[in-house]
């Protein structure tokens, strides 16, 4: 637009000839200084021209990008018969890593494994009542490590200066075989160091190897026991040792085994420091067995709701679920066991062990012992203290109570946990003495996990031939002379015998991605055997099956059925009488010895639900799953009683210890002897005062070893930092077993601060009953109207509804009756998808979160983003501690509101814990839908709150308006390489783990739980094709299928016979925040605790009321 008017900037311009500046600025701008690059200042392009160019090229690029790119599509040349592109295949397989065991189903798409769930038909981890296989987050997350691009691509050998040269299997085999022959002739020891091997075929391979190298060894009848008389020693080493228990069983019953437990038969369950829901024993079995006795509806006179006692130092997952929890120090654990023993022995007339008093727990011990006595034969006592003496006393308690044969089975014991810590320590000595000629290491990482790893490392240098079968050049493998990488379990054939007669098969779901070979096959190759490992397993099975008369004759059918089922149940041993033959006096002195020298501070070492012993440290899904109690991601830390931390940091209020985006954690220094560990401190309510707990399994790759793509973080300078610190140096060996307590420590704050990533910072439920509801079993079982424990939310209205001629706050109607909106046509029309979550069955383990991650391509964002509350998990597990202060009490005492709220924020020193899985509640009156300016989130007539990514423009109004805070915003393109270092799923190989049925979201859009709409659509399609209604239970969401305790039930609320409707209409059901009237489709079930005091407490307040 041109105009004829002229304006002058100043008088000078008017008077003189107009000097229109050629540049916009009269004085030259200091570009040269600002940019420092001479080339940039030479440009003659003005700012406006530049903007014009920019605009033109932007629009040109936009238009050019609209052209559809040419997409190539390459079909199979010869399509495998069983693969239909777009249709998932499920294969039965078995997961075993030396710690966890589960029969699983592997979902593959176009030949790529993408998801893992429990085997619903077979396996020891299967709940026969619910027909679901229970697994945990470690197992269902393991699929992503298959696509770790940092795995060893083939055999490599060290060339001396710390670097490696790639070699071929043929040359590696040749060198190793020559080396072994030479060493065998020299008479030096050859050692095979593995985790607990429960594979009959691997045992057979080891036997073949031992025979070949020299000496004679024979496989036992069941293919499990191998007599060693060879120059090759097979030493088994469990990263987390159970040597104390197995040794105690040897002393008590003559069997060095880890027993089978059946917690579903236990009316009273006493755990003294054993976190059996998370890591202790065989958690996949423990969890479902525990949960079947926790639903009050299932309680009968014969099988009452179980009563769970937990004595422990750290608030563990098991402790959080316990009815009665008693805080004791690690050094008091043997005394608690002895106290229980003597209380029971006195009643039953057995020998006592001279228990000493535990000041803080004596009352509880007496009460607990009385309950155990009342439940003779239907109880179980387990103990996490890895000390032989203590465990002998535990065995004695269980023997006195007659639990062997009912809750504990030593006849059909497990084959897990065969590790021998004494043998490992002897090996370290032998290596340093130069007596070991060759060592072959499979499945374990001793240089990371041994307390005396430096000695192991120096010994390893003296071993002529050291072969690692590790899939990464990790702490141990990087010091070996050859790495012969093992295949990932999803690429492997394997067989397992977790219990006598129970055969489990693992079949590969994909051919090996790299040039890897299973370690037993390597052993067979070096023994001169030909053929692949599959044929070897088949041969072993055929021999085993033909050797027994109770096995089928038609082997081929049996074999094919076993591959299909993943399990072959051959036989169970008939029960045999057991007599406790332990020496109690000796045990008592050993037990006391094991906790001698306790100082002021005691340190307990534990494993986390996610990372475990450290084997899974390179799994980004597991690193980002928040710890169930502390809600910390991507770190380990020192758990401390809040009061202790207050004292050390010289603070006065709990809220000053808050950790969050703005609030850093205090670093404390834990010193034991010469070992110093500096870690951030996390106040953990329920932690025994003057004790600290530190998680093992962190600090992998501290010296820059390759331990996997997500095992390290990068600091601001781009340097690799290990995640957390390695706490294994604090372990020790005593009396032939690894000890996970250090009793004489000093703890102090360093004054430094540390940034941590937490997903939940609030601690208590603030006495709000509309979110968390709980009651006691006694209260619930009165079966009075549900209002006594599950009160409906009421809303005061401006009408005289109670007909007292006054309109006041007493005119209340149920909140669900008040309706501001027009109802969506959901009820009684078509489907109405809903979910019911039983807070009694939920243990808070977090397997649902990782199952959801894997099904829905949920992004991993890394610690830095978690700190900014940008975690992308579609579901979370809210954890609430109980507080000593209640609203009612506080008001009666006349406390001011602010002071009261502040007090209610503070958890008790020994709180009750409440876990609550929260995902999108799919409100029928969804607040998010009404505020979206572009209708990107809308309601379906099936009750789903739909999220349309391609429509979303990222205003985040919906997230602001969501009362449940379940909506997640993509702040970045998490799919790009920027996040590759925290999420290997975003590199070219890692992307193979993505579910092709779910859109990968990009920057700028909101995402949230879709109630696995892809599964719903798939289930409906299957029903339509079959011409039948959708069967109840046919459609499962990832979380409901992945829940090991069946706490989550999904289904059609319009199906009058559906399980979910029955639960959602039951007396325990309630909706979260019912009073806001959003009508969610997710119901929760009131948590029922099997305790009494709370009743008394309620009555007291009621009495006070009246």
């Amino acid at each position: 637009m041109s105009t004829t008017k002229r304006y002058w900037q100043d008088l000078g311009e008017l008077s003189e000839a107009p000097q229109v500046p050629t540049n916009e600025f009269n004085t030259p701008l200091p570009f040269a200084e600002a940019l420092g690059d001479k080339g940039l200042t030479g440009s003659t392009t003005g700012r406006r021209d530049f903007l014009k160019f920019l605009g033109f090229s932007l629009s040109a690029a936009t238009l050019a990008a609209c052209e559809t790119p040419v997409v190539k599509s390459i079909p199979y040349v010869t399509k495998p018969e069983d693969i239909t592109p777009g249709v998932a295949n499920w294969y039965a397989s078995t997961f075993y890593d030396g710690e966890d065991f589960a029969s699983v189903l592997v979902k593959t798409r176009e030949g790529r494994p993408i998801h893992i769930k429990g085997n619903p038909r077979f396996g020891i981890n299967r709940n026969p009542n619910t027909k679901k296989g229970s697994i945990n987050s470690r197992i269902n997350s393991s699929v992503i490590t298959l696509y770790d691009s940092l795995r060893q691509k083939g055999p490599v050998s060290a060339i001396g200066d710390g670097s490696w040269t790639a070699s071929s299997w043929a040359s590696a085999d040749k060198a190793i075989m020559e080396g072994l022959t030479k060493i065998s002739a020299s008479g030096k020891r050859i050692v095979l160091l593995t985790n607990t091997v429960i594979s009959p075929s691997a045992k057979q391979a080891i036997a073949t190897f031992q025979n070949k190298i020299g000496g004679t060894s024979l496989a036992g009848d069941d293919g499990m026991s191998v007599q060693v008389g060879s120059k090759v020693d097979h030493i088994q080493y469990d990263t987390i040792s159970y040597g104390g228990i197995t040794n105690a069983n040897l002393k008590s019953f003559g069997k060095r085994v880890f027993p089978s437990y059946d917690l579903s038969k236990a009316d009273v369950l006493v755990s003294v420091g054993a976190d059996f829901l998370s890591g202790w024993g065989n958690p996949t079995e423990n969890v479902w067995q525990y949960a079947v006795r926790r639903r009050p509806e299932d309680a009968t006179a014969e099988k009452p709701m179980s009563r769970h006692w937990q004595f422990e130092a750290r608030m563990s997952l098991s402790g959080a679920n316990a009815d009665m929890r008693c805080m004791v120090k690690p050094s008091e654990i043997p005394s608690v066991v002895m106290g229980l023993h003597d209380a029971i022995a006195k009643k039953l007339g057995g020998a006592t062990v001279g228990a000493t008093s535990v000041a803080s727990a004596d009352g509880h011990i007496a009460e607990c012992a009385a309950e155990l006595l009342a439940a003779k034969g239907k109880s179980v006592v387990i103990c996490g203290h890895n000390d032989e003496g203590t465990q002998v006393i535990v065995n004695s308690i269980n023997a006195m109570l007659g639990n062997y044969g009912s809750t504990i089975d030593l006849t059909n014991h497990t084959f897990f946990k065969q590790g021998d810590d004494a043998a490992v320590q002897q090996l370290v000595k032998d290596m340093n003495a130069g007596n070991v000629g060759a060592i072959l290491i499979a499945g374990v990482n001793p240089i990371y996990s041994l307390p005396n790893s430096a000695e192991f490392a120096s010994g390893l240098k003296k071993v002529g031939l050291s072969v690692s079968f590790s899939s990464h050049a990790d702490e141990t493998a990087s010091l070996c002379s050859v790495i012969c990488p093992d295949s990932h379990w999803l690429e492997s054939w394997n067989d397992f015998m977790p219990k006598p007669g129970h055969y489990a098969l693992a079949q590969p779901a994909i051919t090996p991605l790299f040039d890897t070979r299973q370690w037993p096959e390597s052993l067979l190759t070096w023994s001169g055997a030909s053929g692949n490992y599959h044929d070897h397993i088949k041969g072993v099975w055929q021999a085993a099956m033909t050797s027994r008369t109770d096995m089928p004759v038609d082997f081929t059918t049996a074999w094919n059925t076993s591959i299909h089922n993943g399990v072959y149940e051959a036989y169970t041993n008939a029960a045999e009488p057991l007599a406790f033959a332990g020496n109690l006096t000796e045990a008592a002195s050993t037990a006391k010895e094991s906790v001698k020298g306790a100082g002021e501070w005691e340190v307990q070492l534990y494993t986390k639900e996610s990372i475990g012993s450290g084997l899974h440290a390179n799994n980004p899904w597991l690193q980002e799953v928040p710890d169930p109690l502390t809600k910390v991601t991507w770190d380990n830390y020192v758990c401390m009683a809040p009061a202790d931390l207050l004292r050390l940091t010289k603070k006065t209020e709990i809220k000053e210890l808050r950790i969050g985006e703005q609030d850093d954690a205090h670093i404390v220094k834990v010193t034991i002897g010469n070992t110093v560990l500096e870690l951030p401190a996390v106040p953990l309510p329920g932690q025994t005062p003057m004790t600290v707990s530190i998680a093992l399994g962190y600090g992998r790759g501290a010296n820059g070893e390759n331990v996997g793509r997500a095992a390290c973080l990068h600091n601001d300078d781009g340097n690799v930092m290990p995640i957390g610190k390695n706490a294994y140096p604090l372990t020790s060996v005593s009396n032939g077993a690894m000890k996970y307590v250090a009793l004489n420590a000093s703890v102090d704050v360093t004054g430094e601060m540390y940034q941590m990533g937490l997903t939940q910072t609030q601690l208590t439920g603030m006495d709000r009953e509309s979110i968390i509801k709980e009651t006691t079993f006694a209260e619930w079982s009165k079966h009075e109207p549900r209002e006594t424990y599950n009160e409906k939310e009421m809303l005061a209205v401006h009408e005289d509804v109670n007909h007292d001629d006054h309109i006041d706050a007493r005119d209340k109607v149920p909140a669900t009756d008040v309706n501001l909106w027009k109802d969506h046509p959901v009820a009684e029309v078509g489907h109405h998808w809903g979910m019911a979550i039983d807070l009694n069955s939920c243990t808070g383990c977090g397997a649902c979160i990782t199952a959801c991650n894997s099904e829905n391509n949920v992004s991993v964002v890394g610690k830095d983003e978690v700190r900014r509350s940008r975690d992308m998990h579609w579901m979370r597990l809210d954890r609430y501690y109980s507080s000593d202060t209640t609203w009612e009490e506080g008001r009666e005492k006349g406390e001011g509101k602010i002071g009261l709220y502040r007090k209610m924020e503070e958890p008790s020193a020994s709180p009750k814990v409440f876990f609550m899985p929260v995902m999108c509640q799919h409100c029928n009156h969804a607040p998010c839908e009404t505020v979206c300016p572009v209708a990107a989130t809308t309601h379906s007539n099936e009750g789903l709150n739909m999220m349309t990514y391609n429509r979303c423009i990222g205003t985040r109004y919906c997230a602001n308006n969501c009362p449940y805070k379940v909506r997640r915003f993509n702040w970045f393109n998490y799919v790009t390489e920027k996040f590759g270092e925290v999420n290997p799923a975003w590199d070219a190989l890692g992307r193979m783990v993505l579910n092709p049925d779910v859109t990968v979201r990009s920057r700028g859009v909101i995402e949230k739980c879709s109630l696995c709409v892809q599964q719903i659509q798939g289930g409906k399609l299957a029903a339509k094709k079959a011409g039948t209604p959708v069967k109840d239970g046919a459609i499962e969401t990832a979380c409901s299928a992945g829940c090991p305790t069946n706490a989550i039930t999904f289904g059609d609320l319009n199906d009058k016979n559906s399980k979910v409707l029955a639960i959602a209409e039951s007396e325990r059901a309630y909706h979260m925040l019912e009073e806001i009237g959003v009508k969610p489709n997710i119901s929760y079930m009131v948590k029922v605790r099997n305790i009494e005091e709370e009743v008394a407490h309620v009555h007291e307040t009621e009495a006070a009321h009246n």
Partner: protein
Amino acid sequence: MTANAVSNEDIDAILYYADNYKPKVAPPPDGTTAGGGAKDPKQMGDDTPWQWLIIVVLLLLVVVLSLGGVKNQLKNALHERDGKEAVPERSIWGSIVHWSGNNKSWASIFGFILFCFLIVQGWNWAINIGIYGGEEVAHYKPEQPIKFNHTLHAGKMAINCQYCHSSAEKSKHAGIPSANVCMNCHQAIDQGPVTGTAEIAKIYEAVGWDPTNMKYTGVEKPIAWVKVHNLPDHVAFNHATHVAVGKIECQKCHGPVDTQMDVAEQWNSLTMGWCIQCHNETEVSQMASGAQSNGYYDEIHRRLTETPLGNKELQKYLEDEKITVKELGGWECAKCHY
């Protein structure tokens, strides 16, 4: 196969049928014109009168301009007589500007109309960016590594679509057939009527078939076809739903593949508007029995009829006397986007 599965008469009958086969007339792609098959989009609108309109408008314009000139000359003549200055000579643009200056409100109205017209035209143009197929835009018809002739196979030879695209009723993908499916026939047929041996030899190369020795060499070379129908990644389209449950003819979306597609092309626009238009019109069978019944929909129907709320909804659905896919939720976002 058993040796005498077919008799000589059967073979003669088949050959007779194949020789005398006349392809069925394909249904029109969008139901625009019934009967006459689909038209070439380029020939569309040949006989429309708008060219005539342009000619008339141009003629009128010439008349207006010459009349304007005459008017100016007359005016100048008058001015000359009155001794005034002559009206300055103006170009056409100049006179438009001059006129606009004198008639500001009319100029604004015309300007506004022109502006709106350009916006609408621009919008319509932009909306078709990156879209192929349909009536207005050229069909996407890329050259393929093997000149596979759909008309020959699906039309003349009358091979069922799902013989090759076998996963269409099982999976979300119809699937490009693997080369071993080609070999079911082409192991015997090594020469075609159009391209002779040249194109079939490419299949042999891909599967590693040695036609002279009649055996597989084991050297396979996958074929990189060019994908014709490209949906955005955020669309979850499922073939099985439409083919196995909806019983929709392939031609409904893919056009007259069997009669007019020597080279596969994208016939319809595959836009969301196109998708949901069909969902709006397509009726879901309410038959409780017979070939069209489906136990799944029976249950949905039962829920609608047996409850008061459902009944109310059902009456709404039945206002047009049919239940459409849309009414059962076929327009909901999460049916296709998740």
